[in-house]
């Protein structure tokens, strides 16, 4: 039974779908995975309960936590993975570290509307790297693979260097893995369906990924109701 099916049995809807990872990449990076949920949404200003939750989160998050963050297992796992794929996590920060940095610099987790606030809540609570796409633009399921010769990222001039790690759908790359999202795949105010995706790396437990997706989904749904 797939994990998605197992989740639906215990009543969490929508159940996360598991994307595939190109076999040679999976062989290099055991534990790498992508899971996502699709849901209806109306991007825009966050309702008061979500903004209150962000304020509560800001009150619970201090500089000391930001400093010790890189010692915690999940943020550390992402830092290590960033290193392993050639990125510098101190320059190209992991999602959780970027949020911690913004929290310290701005004095709070600023509201940027939905679904951004939902992702903030879920990332800060769990440490899992999440991102959102416009689900209506996606063709088929998401996967992690390297770019083929001649492929490019929508909205970006030039071809991707062969072997660039990407998040792709059935048509082609939609984003760089832990990088920019292709033009047209970002969530816009007129987007009506979201895909919230979690990229899992070695050291991040499945339960944390499920929790992050569940938390983000319920927060978006709070805004919809």
């Amino acid at each position, binding site marked *: 039974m797939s994990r998605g099916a197992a989740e639906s049995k215990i009543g969490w809807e929508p159940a996360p779908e598991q994307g595939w990872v190109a076999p040679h990449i999976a062989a290099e990076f055991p534990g790498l995975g992508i899971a996502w949920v699709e849901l209806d949404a109306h991007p825009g200003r966050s309702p008061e309960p979500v903004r209150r939750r962000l304020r509560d989160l800001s009150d619970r998050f201090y500089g000391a936590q930001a400093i010790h963050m890189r010692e915690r297992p999940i943020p550390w796992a992402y830092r290590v993975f960033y290193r392993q794929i050639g990125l510098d996590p101190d320059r*190209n920060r992991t999602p959780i570290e970027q949020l911690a940095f913004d929290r310290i610099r701005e004095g709070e987790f600023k509201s940027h509307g939905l679904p951004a606030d939902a992702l903030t809540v879920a990332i800060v609570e769990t440490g899992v790297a999440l991102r959102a796409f416009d689900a209506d633009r996606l063709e088929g399921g998401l996967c992690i693979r390297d770019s083929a010769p001649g492929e490019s990222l929508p909205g970006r001039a030039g071809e991707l260097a062969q072997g660039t790690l990407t998040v792709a759908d059935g048509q082609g790359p939609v984003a760089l893995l832990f990088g920019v999202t292709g033009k047209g795949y970002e969530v816009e105010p007129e987007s009506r369906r979201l895909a919230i995706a979690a990229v899992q790396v070695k050291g991040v437990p499945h339960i944390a990924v499920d929790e992050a997706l569940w938390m983000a989904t319920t927060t978006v749904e709070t805004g919809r109701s």
Partner: protein
Amino acid sequence: MPDLLARDSPIGLRVEVDERLARVELRRQVGHLERELATLFTEAFGRVELDYRVAAMAAEPRILDLGDLERLRDELAERVADARLSLRERARFETANRELVRRMLASPADFKWVQVSRDDLGLPGCGHWHSRPRLGPIGMLMGWWRVKISSGCPLAGRLAAVEQEAKASQASGAG
């Protein structure tokens, strides 16, 4: 005969090397070093400046080859070694200062005007130990020295009062 020559040629001895296991091992080492660096970073925070940065190996995410991974591993190892050295030196400095404070407290007159801050001992917060004479010039002449321990950080209220005072004096100066 040509068959025999062909069979004995060095081309027949070529061995395909699977580097994947070597890459996996290097990635494991990178993870270990990253954890060590993270621990040293938090240990050093606020005490000593560490050069913990290792430049990106690629502009965009990709599978690093053996050479890149080796370079990354070596650079991380270098940062870890430097960080350990800096922390060891800092610890030595703090231990020496702790000893100095102990001797100052035992014999203040031997350390006239010496001041050691909490920061010099690796302690959080404000404050310092200062060897100074009791009753000012009289104490200096009489050799009445003591170590005065400051009461810590200024209170927020006092800082606000100073700020207000500064603003008021600026306003009066402008007026």
